């Protein structure tokens, strides 16, 4: 069984000059003079972490007690406070373990308050503590960051928002994954039984581009102040892009969104849920036509549906009385879905309520390409928005 991290850290790595003629050496950027580090030793440290399987497959940053202390200094929480427990595994993650893995993921200490808010949001989100990270469904956590902390730590909310290139986005999301592996022992092929998984399992952390949104940002919509920073975690399956550069008619785009949400391949339960990530251009199009976020939500709810024939054609026209997952009506476990007893039993809504759709703005202001994030579960409840508490901020 692969080891998990819970004990002592290695002592501080050497930082004196190296005279080994056979090894490549380098100075830190911006420094001249004598060489300070032995690259072969650095590689040996990286290989040590890899050999212990303390990794998502990519190299991790070696962590020392002194470096760990810089992370712990950013929070008023005790190192032994529990940030998330998984009782079915008899394992829990403490602030100290979360900090070790954040440092290993490449976070800077200033990111750690965001990582802790992410853990608190994941607790409120509930799916992770109930074992979803071990499921064949292969989900991943999406972290949405709002508020002034985005600018303080350089968290991207504009172009390539779901892509690479930004340390805060890359490493805050990765901190969650490394913790799942190293603290909870969720190694693929073992306790992580994901059938295919998703690229988001490496990292998925995005900012909302509040300054380009015509509406209140996500955290303000859910009760926080615009001056607060916040993290909202959502367990997701994938990100599906919507090409809509061609139209200025809000109904065109809204129907493209509903069609994506109601795709039959996504349907597992009675209904699904979604996070709509609009680019600024698309958000403005709705706003300029007089649509509020709630108007868009209502339109999507009203139109996102399948006909019963569509679901019957893919064998999803009933519900299992045991798992409540969709299956064919002639299956021995089948019982009628909720839509069967509605006024229009031939129409099967894809959403349980307008609140099953969350809306935010992110991505470059350069094209009409938005996204539907397929969030796991039926939802309809408020998202788990958690304020970032930074010990070094007023």
């Amino acid at each position, binding site marked *: *069984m692969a080891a998990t991290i819970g004990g002592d850290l290695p002592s501080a790595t050497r930082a004196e000059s190296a005279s080994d003629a056979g090894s490549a050496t380098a100075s830190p950027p911006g420094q001249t003079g004598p060489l300070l580090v032995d690259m072969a030793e650095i590689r040996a440290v990286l290989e040590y972490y890899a050999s212990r399987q303390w990794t998502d497959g990519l190299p991790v940053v070696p962590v020392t007690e002194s470096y760990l202390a810089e992370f712990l200094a950013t929070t008023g929480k005790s190192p032994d406070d529990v940030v998330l427990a998984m009782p079915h*595994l*008899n394992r829990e993650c403490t602030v100290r373990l979360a900090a070790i893995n954040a440092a290993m993921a490449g976070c800077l200490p200033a990111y750690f308050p965001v990582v802790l808010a992410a853990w608190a949001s994941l607790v409120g989100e509930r799916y992770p503590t109930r074992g979803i990270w071990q499921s064949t469904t292969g989900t991943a956590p999406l972290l949405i960051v709002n508020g002034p902390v985005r600018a303080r730590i350089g968290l991207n909310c504009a172009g390539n928002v779901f892509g690479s290139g930004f340390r805060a986005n890359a490493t805050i999301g990765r901190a969650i994954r490394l913790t799942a592996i190293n603290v909870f022992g969720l190694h693929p*092929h*073992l*306790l992580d*039984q994901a059938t295919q998984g998703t690229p988001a399992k490496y990292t998925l952390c995005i900012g909302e581009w509040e300054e380009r949104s015509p509406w209140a940002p996500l955290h303000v919509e859910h009760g926080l102040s615009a001056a607060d920073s916040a993290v909202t975690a959502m367990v997701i399956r994938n990100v599906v892009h919507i090409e809509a550069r061609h139209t200025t008619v809000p109904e065109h785009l809204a129907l493209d969104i509903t069609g994506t949400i109601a795709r039959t391949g996504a349907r597992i339960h009675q209904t699904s849920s979604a996070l709509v990530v609009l680019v600024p251009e698309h958000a403005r199009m709705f706003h300029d036509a007089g649509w509020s976020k709630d108007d868009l939500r209502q339109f999507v709810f009203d139109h996102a549906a399948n006909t019963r024939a569509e679901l019957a054609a893919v064998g999803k026209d009933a519900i299992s009385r045991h798992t409540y997952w969709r299956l064919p009506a002639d299956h*021995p476990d089948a019982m009628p879905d909720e839509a069967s007893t509605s006024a229009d039993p031939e129409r099967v809504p894809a959403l349980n309520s307008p609140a099953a759709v969350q809306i935010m703005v992110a991505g470059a202001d350069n094209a009409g390409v938005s996204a539907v994030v397929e969030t796991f579960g039926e939802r309809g409840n408020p998202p788990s928005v958690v304020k970032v508490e930074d010990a070094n901020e007023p």
Partner: protein
Amino acid sequence: MPAVSICTDSFVPAAEAMARLYGFPGYQFALMPHPLASLDDAQLRARARELLPDILRILGTES
């Protein structure tokens, strides 16, 4: 109450990992071929019949 866990062969590594986690390395469970979720009623009954000898063996029932 005596119980026997049944799992499909696809989940052996995960099942063994959970057994180790709970301090029961070598915990025995009855195995059957994947897939299970797509079997019909008759196929499920056939699987149950095939599994019975192994379930009784793990329970320690005298034949």
